[in-house]
């Protein structure tokens, strides 16, 4: 028997073992990275951009399917309940539990539809998204990024996130230094100073496009 033939399976086993080890190591490092807020934001952004760029989903017939898929990604990454509660600010505590639940549902649907509309309109202008760094303090994090358009305009974006289990979930976004929550909190303050809460809810309901889930 050729001794080389006896050695071959051993060598193959060794190689396979190293490959497996390398795979495990890569997997472990990916898992570690995926825990970081920037990595999680990147995954969500890349998935949404891929959905928007997918030619198979660009047809009129599959538009609602594409919106549904984007909605699912947003739901995973954005803590709608905290965004809505924080946006209503000091008026939140004055509402009943049922009113609070209704408000979260209406406000999150409105924001979701607005975001998806903006993505669809401006997707073609996007050049690149760069992540500049993250800061984690206890269970809170901020991720700084910049979005560049094809016109060479750079928009600074800052995500504010809170840890929930293994996930980092967004509770505020600052675009050009302007906070989304602060913007809505000021608007709700102004509206509720002039008109009753029921009017605000009716206005929110009217703004949500018909047919959205």
């Amino acid at each position, binding site marked *: 028997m050729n001794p080389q033939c006896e050695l071959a399976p051993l060598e193959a086993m060794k190689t396979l073992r190293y490959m497996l080890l390398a795979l495990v190591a890569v997997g472990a490092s990916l898992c570690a990275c995926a825990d970081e807020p920037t990595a999680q934001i990147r995954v969500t952004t890349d998935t949404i951009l891929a959905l928007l760029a997918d030619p198979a989903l660009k047809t009129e017939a599959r538009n609602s399917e594409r919106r549904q898929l984007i909605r699912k990604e947003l739901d995973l990454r954005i803590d709608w309940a905290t965004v809505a*509660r*924080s946006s*209503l*600010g*000091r*008026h*939140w*505590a004055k509402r009943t539990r049922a009113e609070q639940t209704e408000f979260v549902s209406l406000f999150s649907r409105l924001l979701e539809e607005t975001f998806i509309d903006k993505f669809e309109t401006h997707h073609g202008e996007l050049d690149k998204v760069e992540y500049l760094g993250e*800061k984690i*303090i206890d269970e*809170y994090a901020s991720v700084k990024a910049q979005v560049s358009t094809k*016109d*060479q*305009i*750079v928009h600074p974006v*800052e995500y*504010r996130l809170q840890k929930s289990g293994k996930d980092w979930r967004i509770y*505020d976004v*600052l675009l*050009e*230094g*302007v*906070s989304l*929550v*602060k913007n809505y*909190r*000021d608007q709700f*303050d102004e509206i509720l100073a002039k008109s009753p809460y029921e009017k605000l809810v009716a206005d929110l309901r009217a703004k949500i496009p018909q047919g959205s889930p």
Partner: protein
Amino acid sequence: MKKAYLEFVVGLFLAIGIGCLAWLSIKLARKEFFARNGYEVQAAFSNGSGLRRGTPVVIAGVEIGRVASVGLQDYEAKVRIVIQQGVALQSDTIASIKTKGLIGEKYIELTPGASDKTIKAGGVIRETQPAMDLEALIGKYIQGSLAKPDDKGQPPL
């Protein structure tokens, strides 16, 4: 006797004058000899331009505190604020730097949040919105319009 009385009156006027000057200097410099009845919180702004010791801190336009100090930490403006005792700040209170008047004096506006938790003495206002850099914002759009490629797809200068 008359001379001593005259000297006393002159001395009294001088003392009152010096007292008034001292009061005016303290008020103008916004320095406090005795600590106000309040508690201290901190906030970090990515742009804290215009903030200095004594900058007012308001809620709904009512002054409820002042900036105690401004320093640099991790390339951010770290601000210590003294808040009046009795004014509770929710943990999702947003601190934003605003401008008032024609000369552009800065102040910090706090917008109360909805959280059940409040910020304790020595705590941090986590949510901050930096001072708006209007020049950069206007510049960006001017530059943006110049940077657009022309009709032939050629890049600008």
